[in-house]
């Protein structure tokens, strides 16, 4: 047995939506359970008093990376069949800046804004309204910006391919970086919270 299931023809492409729904429910549940519906937790990364977002996402990335490599080794998953999104370098850099700006201004990312709506937050509702407005404007303006959007296409590459190192080495480097980030942010948090008296930490 070897995944991924759809490119292998083991299950049909129509299952995409069913799997997406199940994963979406699980993802939303875990976001809410990790406290991501609170915009204070999210914006805290930028002020240095709460790095839970960074830690949760980095943990997810590292566990998934290591897990996939072990799965590949065991022959449970065929890594060559896993779809890699194409990298448009310039537009991705600009896009991530816009995303970060929206993050710190609104206190949500698209996913967490929905979990916040699910628990009845009005600011999240307004945020989602802005999100749809942004999607609409982007779609309308796309003919003008498509040239920029598709520029600097590196193709379907992964970071280790670009750097010319093995998958294992890159994973190890990222794990070390991640662990340093965990402990580092923990120290930053401690220092900031000492001086920051007006916010109550749970």
């Amino acid at each position, binding site marked *: 047995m070897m995944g991924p299931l759809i490119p292998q023809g083991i299950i049909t492409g129509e299952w995409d939506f069913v799997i997406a729904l199940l994963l979406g429910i699980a993802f939303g549940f875990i976001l809410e359970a990790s406290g991501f519906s609170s915009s204070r937790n999210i914006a805290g990364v930028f002020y240095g008093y709460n790095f839970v977002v960074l830690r949760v996402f980095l943990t997810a990335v*590292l566990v998934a990376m290591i897990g996939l490599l*072990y799965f590949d*080794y065991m022959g449970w998953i065929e890594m060559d069949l896993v779809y890699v999104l194409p990298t448009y370098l310039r537009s991705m850099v600009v896009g991530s800046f816009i995303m970060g700006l929206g993050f710190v201004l609104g206190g949500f990312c698209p996913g967490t804004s929905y979990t916040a709506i699910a628990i009845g937050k009005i600011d999240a509702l307004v945020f989602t309204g802005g999100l749809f407005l942004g999607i609409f404007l982007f779609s309308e303006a796309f003919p003008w910006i498509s040239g920029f959007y598709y520029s600097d296409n590196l193709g379907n590459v992964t970071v280790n391919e670009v750097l010319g190192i093995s998958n294992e080495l890159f*994973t*190890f480097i990222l*794990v070390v970086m*991640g*662990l340093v980030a965990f402990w580092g942010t923990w120290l930053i948090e401690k220092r900031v919270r000492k001086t920051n008296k007006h916010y109550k930490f749970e």
Partner: protein
Amino acid sequence: MNRNYLYLTMLMLALAGGLFVLPERNNEQGTLPEELMWDIVQPTRYATTDQVARMIIEKDPTIELIDVRPFDEYTDFSLPGAVNIPLDSIVNENYQDYLGIQDMNAVFFSDDDIKADQAWVIARRMGYDNIYVMRGGLNCWVETIIRPEKPDETASRQEFEKYILRKGASMYFVGGAKMDENTGSKKTNVAVKRKKKAAVAEGGC
């Protein structure tokens, strides 16, 4: 500080480091012999010369003809629109783009169908789908499409219909030269009989 975090940190490092010390392991899972046998005995993996001819004439965009003979034979004569992948190059990296194109039906052919069959088995073993063999190869192509034999007078109607189709295909592939034999469009001397001028006062009034 929670001690569990320390354990988790160590576990992560150990797992990531463990990736380096894993012994080599080959996960290549080829086609199982039973599966290959099952695929080989299917008659549907063959395409007849008539089917191929019709698809070429109708300019079917889903057909991809692959000539597996050596390059010099390919340059001498091949089917229209065919690409050349010599049998010994089927596994070559550079040719892989021709195989496994989505929604394309690759049809292998050679002089007979032995080499094409071999190419088919290799390609199947490499995991390609939608691959076929032109039954009888180019020899059969010449016999049936280029020089179709007229059926006996007593042959069935289907035989005659097939013959007419093949005749049409032959005209398509060989061109006008063949056509002239039958339609008589060759320049022949047709004697023009001119009406003699009526002699003056021929006949009386």
